[in-house]
């Protein structure tokens, strides 16, 4: 029995490059393996940096690949702190000021982040925050499907409610 969470509509021709990355202290990789497959099925090329990526390495890889989107995923509970550190580094690079960057997963040790924490991630420079929940994958899929195909900045930073 297949639990189909979305149509398997692999596209032909690349819509651009997406960088998928864990955060500095997070060793988990299944979230990254899954995201790579899903984003590839949407027609993007994926550069998967794997787990435990330092902000410096992330910035260097993004400057090299000029991605249409950067997807940060974390599930070990340090996503909030690590996310704040890395978005500062990204926005500090003149080449990455407008690159869309989103973060998702289990971002705090106590389960859900409070409302203020998600807002702080947004004001620090993330374009969307996807907290772990029953519909997170569907929301993220919708977000990805609606992305412009070239590396253009998003119209404005809006929290994606999930």
């Amino acid at each position, binding site marked *: 029995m*297949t*639990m*189909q*969470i*979305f149509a*398997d509509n692999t596209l032909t021709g690349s819509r651009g490059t997406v960088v998928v990355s864990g955060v*500095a*202290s*997070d*060793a988990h*990789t*299944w979230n*990254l*393996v*899954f995201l790579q*497959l*899903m984003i590839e*099925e949407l027609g993007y090329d994926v550069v*998967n940096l*794997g*787990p*435990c*990526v330092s902000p410096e*390495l992330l910035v260097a890889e993004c400057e090299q690949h000029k991605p249409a989107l950067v997807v940060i995923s974390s599930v*070990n*509970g*340090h996503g909030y*702190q690590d996310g704040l550190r890395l978005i500062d580094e990204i926005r500090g690079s003149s080449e990455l000021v407008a690159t869309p960057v989103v973060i998702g997963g*289990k971002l705090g*040790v*106590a*389960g859900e982040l409070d409302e203020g924490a998600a807002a702080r991630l947004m004001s620090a420079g993330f374009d969307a925050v996807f907290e772990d*929940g*029953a519909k997170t*994958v569907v929301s993220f899929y919708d977000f990805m499907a609606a992305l412009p195909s070239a590396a253009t900045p998003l119209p404005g930073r809006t929290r994606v409610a999930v």
Partner: protein
Amino acid sequence: MNACFPTRTTGAADETPVDFGEFVRSRGGRGSIVAQPRMGFSDPNRMREGLIATKKADAQTVGTLTLDSYTRVGDHEAADTALREGIALNGYPIVNHPVETTKWVLDGVRDDDFPVQVRHGSATPLGIFAALVALNLNATEGGPVSYCLPYGRTPLQDSVRNWSQCCEMFTRLQEVGVEPHLETFGGCMMGQLCPPSMLVAISVLEALFFCHHGLRSVSVSYAQQTNLDQDVEAVQALRALCAELLPTVNWHVVIYTYMGMYPVTDHGCDRLLASAAELAVATGSERVIVKTVAESRRIPTIAENVAALEHAHTTARAYRPEIGGSTAELADSQTYQEARALVHAVLNLHSDLGQALLLAFKQGYLDVPYCLHPDNAGRSRSYIDGDGWLRWGEVGSLPLGHLVPRGRSRRITSSGLLEDLSYVRRKYDEEPSTRADRSVEVGV
């Protein structure tokens, strides 16, 4: 013994702690289990409370200090910042806390009836081992492969060198009459979807690596997978290979309760943990590391850990396995044949086991499915078959051609992967609850 050290305030257990391996072998096995949590808090008070609660639990237990992720990756500055700003970490930062603080955490808690093991997950653990030696903390876990490949970016070559040095540092405790104990984490590669023969092979190889570096007290891990019959076969294979190959009799098996996507219902969590305890009893395994009902949601509380320890203990006491097939039959299973082929292929590559492991990954003789590490070939794939057994989809260059039938190639999709990743969660959540009073559906 205190009389010998009149100026010291610490107890005898701090000077000559019991051998973790001997302790577990004397209390576990033959149908009994030693239960152990994965517990770690950054606050020393809470850490001490957690150890005391573990010790007092209505179960045969050993204690755990689980370290935080910053310490694991060697970012002690970030751990320091979090401590100063009062941000909770996901474990105990043993390198940052002063030695005196950790001594206080352990004082009067650790003793001959309650040894404590440090769990971390680091491929660069020199600082951690230095802290352990300074504290006479003589039990920990990991391995050059299992703490490197799934968990970061450290080159395998560096991890092998680091783990060699750490083993040598750790074995110096033997000179002062303290027996150091190391447990392989190799039975858990990626937590889920790694075929059991690979888990068994890496666990055996890491135990051999420890022994070659002077360890005399070791344990081998195996993480519960998708099917109890297959898991029994795998643990019997692990036991058979350890008996054949390890140069010490002081070894035991530790079962990890499922390490993949955990059920979200209380009855699903309880049943999965019970199944891990049953696996241990059925295979004569001595120790079980438990998981809690909070596992899928957040870091568990002390009370949730205690409940899990007691549930594992009660299950093991009540469980009397039906013997399906003789030990000899189980030991000559498909899993045994595959694991044996993997282990011997690696041992034949080089007389130095560290070098042999490096060559094995370079040549794809060891190749962990879905592992993103640059030193992993990444050509093997696995899937869950219709009968719930975990099988090889692609074997890449693994030396298993004569043992694994070549099937048709399977295209892996994100939805197919997610289906396999959540197989155990679905199976246990959907099973009707046998404990109606506790079947609380957890809203997300």
